């Protein structure tokens, strides 16, 4: 049960004349036990925001706090706190070491807890986690190549959960998956969220998926948040033109695209 807060966060890539602000002065709060959506086109800074929270990039300005504790920096205590934020990546195949059995990848996630459990305890926990994501624990010794994309994504969810996180950042976790598999992963994440009371920052460019998953949502464009609020109200009465454009682009089953209408 934790709250993730971004305050005036800016992230800059590059130096000097080539520098470019990927994220500009962003304020964002993901409330404890809730799912907050982040939508926007690629290059809008969604993933950079995620990377900043887990320490993969360092903000040029602003603070990121977990329950009021600053998680930007490289001191041991900051790093230990930051490990309570875990991330699930877009491409399940590149997110798992092709040469490492999935059980071991999950065990690696357990390092984030700071404990070093004995082998038997570790095996038991891996089995438990695999059961949690509905994968046969007997297959813990197999490499990622023996699993399908959806199964690999479930393994990466198990790895993130192994860290016993307070906050999970899901970065486009179904964009690389088939529509037919997407539902399995989304259902699993929702089920786990309810069961473990997880706080989730859910990044996606698919508005229908965000609407289904999230309680609150922020719309990002060119490094800034242009609109925020409860999902239902933002999507039913968008105030920013970009949000309206996004909404218009969502394909509706069985409905011909209207080419006359400007998009």
């Amino acid at each position, binding site marked *: 049960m934790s709250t993730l807060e971004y305050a005036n966060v800016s992230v800059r890539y590059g130096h000097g004349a080539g520098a470019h602000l990927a994220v500009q002065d962003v304020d964002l709060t993901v409330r404890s036990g809730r799912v907050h959506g982040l939508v926007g086109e*690629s290059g809008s800074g969604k993933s950079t925001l995620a990377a900043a929270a887990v320490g993969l990039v360092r903000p040029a300005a602003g603070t990121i706090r977990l329950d009021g504790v600053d998680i930007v920096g490289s001191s041991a205590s900051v790093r230990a706190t930051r490990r309570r934020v875990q991330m699930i990546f877009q491409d399940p195949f590149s997110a798992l070491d092709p040469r490492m059995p999935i059980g071991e990848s999950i065990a690696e996630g357990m390092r984030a807890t700071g404990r070093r459990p004995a082998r038997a305890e570790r095996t038991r926990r891996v089995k438990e986690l695999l059961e949690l994501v509905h994968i046969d624990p007997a297959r813990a010794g197999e490499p990622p190549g023996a699993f399908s994309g959806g199964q690999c994504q479930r393994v*990466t969810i198990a790895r993130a959960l192994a860290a016993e996180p307070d906050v999970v950042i899901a970065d486009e976790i179904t964009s690389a998956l088939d529509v037919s598999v997407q539902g399995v992963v989304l259902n699993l994440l929702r089920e786990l969220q309810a069961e473990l009371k997880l706080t989730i920052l859910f990044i996606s460019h698919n508005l*229908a998926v965000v609407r289904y998953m999230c309680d609150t949502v922020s719309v990002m464009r060119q490094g800034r948040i242009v609109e925020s609020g409860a999902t239902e109200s933002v999507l039913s009465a968008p105030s920013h033109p970009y949000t309206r454009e996004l909404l218009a682009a969502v394909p*509706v089953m069985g409905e011909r695209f209207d080419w006359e209408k400007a998009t």
Partner: protein
Amino acid sequence: MRSGLRRGLLGPQGVVTVLGTLALVLVIVIAPHVWGDAATTTSVADRLDGPSAAHPFGTDDLGRDVLARVLVAARLSVLLALGSTVIAVLGGVVLGVVATVLPRPLRRLVSALIDILLSFPWLLLALFFSVIWGANAIGAMLAVGFAGVPSIARLTYTLASSVADRDYVRAARIAGVGRAGVVVRHVIPNILPPLLVSTAAHASAALLSFAGLSFLGLGVQAPDFDWGRLLREGIARIYVNPMAALGPGIAIVLTGLVLNAIGSLTGETASRTPRRPAGRRARPAKRASAGERPEPAAVVEVEDLRVSFPDAEGRLVERVRGVGFSIRPGETVGIVGASGSGKSVTAMAVAGLLGAEAHVSAAAVRFQGIDMTSAPTAAERSRLGLELAVVFQDPLTSLNPSLTVGRQLTEVSEVHERVPRARARSRARQVLESVGIAEPHRRARQYPHQLSGGMRQRAMIGMGLMGRPRLVIADEPTTALDVTVQRQVLRVLHEARRRTGSAILFISHDIALVSGFCDRVLVMKDGEIVEELEAARLDEARHPYTRALIACVPHMTTDRSRPLPVIGDLAEPDRQDVAEEARA
């Protein structure tokens, strides 16, 4: 991995490698004991003999048997070469890996240092080092070893950097695994196979370097001898007794071959490369004869198309099982299905773009009357170039990164229509403008990586429009794009169809998208078309799979309080199950 190694060893290459290695090891171990005396005993009476039964390679100036000397020299030559390889690889891997984990400024410094060292020729470095350590065997070993460090370091650094960017390394860092832990757990295992291959290649290069140094008199000194020294002694008499010089040369070549063979075998098994399929490409069951002209009513006709691919064990797995459909001129047909349903394979079969490992058989696969299951004639090829366009999912990999966008567009007209370059250029600019690319003059001179994803995809569609397309095959053309950009690209495709009257074969896993864009939808599952229906009548779908496919996509009115419906029976068979099914 173990079974991969066994399979590798049992293959013809494996058997030869094992035999060669055994022979080499045997010679190294026993030669000094068996032929040691013959190699060192001087006999003035027999000096400078030519080849004979007693001395197959002749004798040297002190009457010693050259063949015995070549065999005995194997131990010193190979051990010195391996010693210097160990130095080069250890030094190189340590330097390369350290360079990867260092903080950025230091990393730049170390990698610049490696680059500088690389620019010196190895022989120069070796000569420099042998001055330091003296002109003897150990000095030469250190010299060749250290001279090899920069190239191995560079390779390690390049390989390790590519692994260090992967998401699994990021995940490990987020979980709190330290730099050293990341190297040991993730980097080393993933760079090992290419490193093993280059280690073996390096060993044979070291063998040659050594021979060179000894030949120059900088390596092994008398009374010791290696192949380089024997070459030096034999070369003076090459016109009198060629075998005295050729013998050591042959030994060097054979040993080099064995080392390379070991390298490619270990590299191959370590990377678990599946065995090359044994089967040949099946010929089409029946060639469309000239008499059977297709009815002009269809742009594409496919009847009973079957495509098989060999799996890891070389067995054939049928991925498309008896598919048949046709596309009318100007029609937009969508194929939907999960990955592995055979939708892309079907489309590529229509385009004639399946690789050599695909086994295609069909009663008919015709595009505008051209039989696409066999190699096209020159005239057919030029028609295909103009009338068939293919748009792939990732334009960054399907556009040539080293040619400007304009050049790639004009290629079509220049090659197939023999249009003068200037005219092709102005046409390319018109086409770019028509696909909604602003400033076509400037964009045509840019390279693919300078364009955004949506713009690249539009340029790709533009390439198809340079000819007179009758069919555009679009294989997941918008999957990698944002929703808003996706809509723009689809609009371009739609406009192109309206202007040229071309038909479109649109492949996607998103049934909502297909239903919005296409006239007719084919639903594929496990290599078969399970249902075919008008896009406007998707709600009348009868097949349970189609209905499940429609139900599982969340839309703007999905009930949030309930779990998403899931395609039950297909839930997702993993790859092994699929393979087993196919075998059964």
